[in-house]
């Protein structure tokens, strides 16, 4: 699903250049659930941005679902993001003047789907995350956990190949975190490929594979026994 070969990325700030990714080789197969860990400055967010086509690598190749992601113009990049990827952010990033339902329906708007069909699909995903009753509410009427669920529904709405989650539980308390993780695990169980950036050990252990990043290099990449969030919740 994801193939990365000797990926390099550096940022120029004035005269100094900061080498963030120093040759990353990495691949993810369909249906995997991978967490990327590392301290701040390790390059994990940069890696996620590149994987999310929000940023572009300086060197190396990135293949997503058999498509080489290189030198894309803004228009194509937007189209690929819409088609291949679903984003879940730490700060939810919902549009605050749109209802939960309209937020979920938005990726479908950019796919050119008609309104009625859009809303029907969006409602389906809201049901899936258990928020059907909250469809008409604005984001500021929802709790943090509910907002993240709406964001997850939105990420799923366009039926992407890969879900990219950047610290999805970073703004939530541990109980809510586990509830959200349970939802994400269920989505993975249905076969969706999921990449998750986190610095919380317990969250990382709820995935199936942990990749450790340090100073722009992968120092450890191992499969782990998945801890089910549901059981953690009832401890």
């Amino acid at each position, binding site marked *: 699903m994801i193939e990365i070969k000797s990926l390099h990325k550096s940022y120029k700030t004035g005269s100094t250049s900061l080498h963030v990714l120093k040759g990353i080789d990495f691949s993810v197969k369909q249906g995997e659930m991978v967490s990327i860990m590392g301290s701040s400055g390790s390059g994990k967010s940069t890696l996620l*941005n590149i994987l*999310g086509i*929000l*940023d572009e690598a300086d060197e190396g190749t990135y293949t997503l679902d058999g498509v080489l992601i290189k030198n894309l113009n*803004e*228009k194509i990049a*937007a*189209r690929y*993001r*819409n*088609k291949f990827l679903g*984003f879940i*952010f730490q700060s939810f*990033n*919902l*549009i605050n*003047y*749109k209802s939960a339902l*309209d937020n979920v329906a*938005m*990726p479908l*708007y*950019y*796919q*050119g789907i*008609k*309104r009625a069909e859009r809303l029907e699909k969006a409602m389906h995903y809201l049901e899936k995350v258990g928020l059907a009753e909250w469809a008409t509410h604005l984001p500021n009427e929802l709790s943090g956990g509910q907002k993240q669920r709406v964001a997850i529904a*939105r990420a799923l709405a*366009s039926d992407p190949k890969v879900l990219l989650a950047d610290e999805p539980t970073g703004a939530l308390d541990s109980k809510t975190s586990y509830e959200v993780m349970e939802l994400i695990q269920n989505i993975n169980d249905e076969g969706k490929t999921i990449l998750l950036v986190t610095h919380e050990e317990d969250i990382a252990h709820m995935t199936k594979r942990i990749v450790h990043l340090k100073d722009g290099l992968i120092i450890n990449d191992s499969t782990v026994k998945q801890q089910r969030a549901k059981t953690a919740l009832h401890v």
Partner: protein
Amino acid sequence: MFDLERWQEIFEAIRKNKLRTFLTGLSVASGIFILVILLATGKGIENGVAKQFERDAASRISVWTGVTSQGYKGLNPGRFIQLKNNDFDQTVLKYQDQLEYKSSIYRIWSGMTTYKNENGSYRIEGALPDYQFLENESMTAGRFINNYDQQNIEKVAVIGHKVFTDLFKGNNAIGEYIDISGIKFKVIGVFTDPGGEREEARIMMPLSTSQKVFNAGDNIRNIAFTLQSTGNFNRDVEASNIFTTQLENQLKTRHTIAPTDNRAITVRSNLQETKRFYDLNNMISLFFWGVGICTIIAGVVGVSNFMLIIVKERTKEIGIRKAIGAEPWSIIWMILHESIFITAIAGFLGLIFGLGLLELAGPAIETEFISNPSVDFNIAISTVFILIVAGAIAGFFPAYRAAKIKPIEALNDD
């Protein structure tokens, strides 16, 4: 433009951001409103001043006399200069190539006039057929004096519209006989004058008749001319100036008046006044246009300002939209579409309010110097479009920049 889905998106954004929409709209609407009122006031002043000049033919040259203020060639000051038929005839003879309309006038200021049981006191003027054009009169019924009337000293009268309504109360006047100073006159026509009621409270008769009826001999009170137009306004003014100077000198010589005496004989050309009026009008419209353009610039700046704020305010939203697959142009269009829509609606609202106010209050404003304030609809519409286009251009750059921002940066914006 007719993408229904995008309209739905925009209406949603507008509905959810009522204050922002209202403020943007208000600045545009008030700009257009002020402009409409301003242009209308300018037009009203122009009309008002124009009306002052419509009373008589625009190029009319008038001659009238007074009392000498200086002694000359052994004659004492304080002598009244009386114009005679001869003065007129000789001038016409001398300048016949240049003259267009010409008339001498005898006048008594108030003549008691009676028809059946109705009566009134009106200005009585004896004149020649051309006088109709010199006075800018048009006939609503019958005809004006003609040469036959003049030669045969016919006792016929042409009455002003005011006289007609006073005496005849809307009944037929043509062919009826009215009594002026005890003599019966046959009414042959009714006229209107753009100068209004004052000018329409007059009765005209052939010069010859008036001189006979009022025992004037060959005395006349005024002479009026217009010159042949060359079709060029400035050349006409020049010709008119030369003519008035020549005529004044000639009449002064004939009546033995000191060349420096400005009281005894006055020859005045309306064209000079008209020129002054045109200059004034140009100044007025220039001024109002200047202020109007400044208003539009202020409106455009207002719109651009709001566009900047809107884009800034929505940076994060733009980032989110881009992350979930919005193409750059769809972002630009979303912002422009919304702003053009608001500007257009607000602009036309301002236009409608402005025109509405003019429609309601306009007719009530009828002073001597402001008349029929109105605005050229095309100009007003064009202004609205200029504002929309300028607003769109001004909004395009921030929108374009917003669309160029990397989604990851926009998402981090707070």
